[in-house]
Each structure stands twice: as C-alpha cells, then as structure tokens.
C-alpha cells in the first residue's frame, strides 16, 4: 500500500510524465498499464543481468524529495545482447531516465520501454520498447534498415 501511494503521489505531483498512447494487449504484460511513465534523474541501485528477465532497481525522488524505489524488468540477457545491451550497460550510481509501463496494481514495478543514459544514448526493451508507445514492440531492424 505504501508503495502504491508513493507511485500515485509522484504521478499526482507531476514529477513523472504520462505519455498517452493506444492500448495494445501483449502476452505476459497484461499486468502493466498501457501508457508510459517517465522517471527522470533516476539513480540505479542494482542491475541484475539474469533470467528470465534482467531487472533494474532504481531510486527516483518525488516532488517532496522522498525517494521512490522502483524495479523495472526488461527482456532476457540473451535477447538484450542482440539489441546492444551488455551486463555492464548500467551500474549502480548511474543517473538515467527510465521510461516504463508501471503495474496496474500500483506497486513500484513495471516493464521497461527504454532507458536514456547520461550520454544521451538509449537502450530499449524488446517486447515493449517501440517508440510509438502503447506497448509496441522494438524493432532495431526498422531503425537501421537491416533485415
């Protein structure tokens, strides 16, 4: 309940940005909202390069300065390696932007859309990493023209 209030509070105070997009059901991700929530100035506390899905734990602050601790899942390492991730892509202490689909139940958890690193580079999720939002799939081939 506390965690739910933290997320709800942060959303209400405008620290986070909700990005509207059309809803699209996707297998395994029905527990998450259909819109993207953005966490800026998020500090990574842990990066688990593990199966079935890699997890990023991070802290973000709400408008009152209170720390919101979140966890976001992305794909399996085997799949992430194919789109540019490594086990050292992020490390504790990194300050990044996290865009994610948060859990419908209000708990501080969600599925990644993408992260933006301090140097401006981006790393996407596979299943929901499309820039069109709305739980669209990320297709790196579409970006590079490589098929």
């Amino acid at each position, binding site marked *: 309940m506390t965690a739910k209030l933290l997320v709800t509070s942060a959303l209400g105070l405008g620290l986070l940005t909700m990005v509207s997009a059309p809803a699209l059901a996707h297998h395994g*991700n*029905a*527990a998450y909202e259909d819109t993207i929530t953005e966490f800026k100035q998020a500090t990574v506390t842990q990066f688990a390069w*593990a199966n079935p899905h890699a997890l990023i734990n991070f802290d973000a602050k709400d408008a009152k300065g209170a720390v919101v601790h979140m966890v976001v899942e992305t794909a399996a390492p085997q799949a992430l390696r194919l789109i540019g991730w490594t086990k050292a892509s992020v490390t504790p202490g990194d300050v990044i932007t996290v865009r994610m689909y948060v*859990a*419908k139940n209000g708990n501080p*958890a969600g599925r990644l859309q993408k992260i933006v690193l301090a140097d401006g580079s981006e790393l996407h999720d596979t299943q929901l990493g499309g820039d069109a939002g709305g739980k669209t799939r990320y297709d790196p081939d579409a970006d590079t023209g490589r098929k």
Partner: protein
Amino acid sequence: MRHPYTGAIAGVAGVLVLAALAAAQGDPPRSPWKYYPMDRAVGDGGPAPKRDLSGTWAGPSSGAGAPRSKAEEQPSLTPLGKQLYDRNKPIGKFSPGGTNDPHTRYCDPFGVPQNMVQEIRGMTIATLPNRTFVLLQYMDLWREVWTDGRTLPTNVGGRGRDTLDPKYNGYSVGRWEDDYTFVVDTTGLAPQTWATKSGYPHSVEAKVQERFHRTSKHDLSLTITMDDPKFYTRPFSIGETHFRWIPNQQLDDFTCIPSEVQQYLKEMGDPAGSDPDAARRPN
C-alpha cells in the same frame, strides 16, 4: 614514356588500400567461440543438400532474420479437454504473478511439442546412422529421434509390468518423406506439461507430427500438428517456425535457472501481480 593516367591510377589505388586498412582496423577480430547475431547467412546459400539437416540453426528472435513464425490455431476441445484447459492460467492472460504455468513459475520442462515452439531460438541437428538428435539452445535440451525403422510404442503410461513411462519429450521416430522433408512422429508425452504456452493440454496418447523442410542450404522450416482425440475433436496446428543457418555455427547460452526465477518472481513478477481483468478475457 610515362602513361598519362599513371598518377591518377596510383592515387586511386592508394586510397583503396588505406580504406581497406581502416576497415580492417575498425573490425575487432572475431572469436570462434562467440555467437554474432549480425553475422547473418547471406541469401539462400544454394540448393539444400539431400537428406541432411545437420548443423546449427537460428530461430525466431535470434537476430538472424528468420521469417516470422506462424502461431498455433485455436483448437476444438472435447468436454474433457475444455475442463483441463480451464484449469490452466497462461502467462499471456495472467502475467508471471498470476499464472500457474509450471515453466514460468518453476522452470519445469516444456516438453514436446511446446519446446519446439516456445522460446525456440538456436537449434542444432546432429545425425547418427540410426538416430537424429535435436539439440535445443533453450534449456540445454536434447531430443532423440530414432530412424532405424522401429514403430512408435503403444504401451506408454499403463499399469502393466511392460509399460513404458511417459517422458517430457516422448518417444520419437523419424523418416525422410522426400529428399528435403524429414518427418518426426512422437507419442508417450508426460501429461503434466502443456502443449502450448496458452495452456492447451495433451494426453499421454497424443500424437505430435513435426515436419522439418529444408528449402535451401540456409533455410529450414518446421510445422507441427497434434492429434489427441481425448481432448480435441480434430487434429490442429501447433504452429510454423523458420530457421536460418548460422555462419560460424556457434550459439550462446540461454536457459531457465530456477534460483534466478525465484528471485525474479519475488522481486518483480509477484509484486507486479496480474491483470485485474484477466479472468474475464479469453486466453
């Protein structure tokens, strides 16, 4: 006498040499031990060799550009099949936090036919004179397909002294239908596994047929059908999957690790929960 274009030709040659050197310096040396998804097989590679599937193949989501898979069809269930199907809570509908899929929750084996569709990525096929082995990247799993002319067992799962135990991958026999199509028939499947990710059940007596069809040196397709009169009113398609030849024949590691899954569920899957509307949606 000096040719008037000698200088220009030498200049162009020099630029080409420098460009080649720069390109060579920009490409780090390739390790023979590593899977490079960007090193894709080019084109179809020419005609398929006859009666030969041997080698290492990249499936869907392997970065190899394999054509998109075709999903399972919605089968027609018998009343008993529907009863079992309704007990299953697939991940697509209930998410990791609400599913009772034994693989998602515990890394239990998929079994045949699900392991030939679900998380099917890298695959190696190896051949002995009397058997063909299908080695799957996901779960570091191997299957044994007998090609010595034997027939499928008919006494799996009964109570007699000579009956055979059901197996996760069942009992398989294979034969060449033509020079490019290898047909594998399987029965005796462990009934606790799901036939598909969406929770369709199967019985021990289910008969699964896989058709491996090699259309070129670089292209292999697999279509799967299942016939299980106990639970379904007619045979149905489990799906169609495409594979591409991997140039350096090397795969990387990908498996379900129970300790990591338990950590994932504790930290992520269970807190995220399930879609509150899941029970009202079709699987």
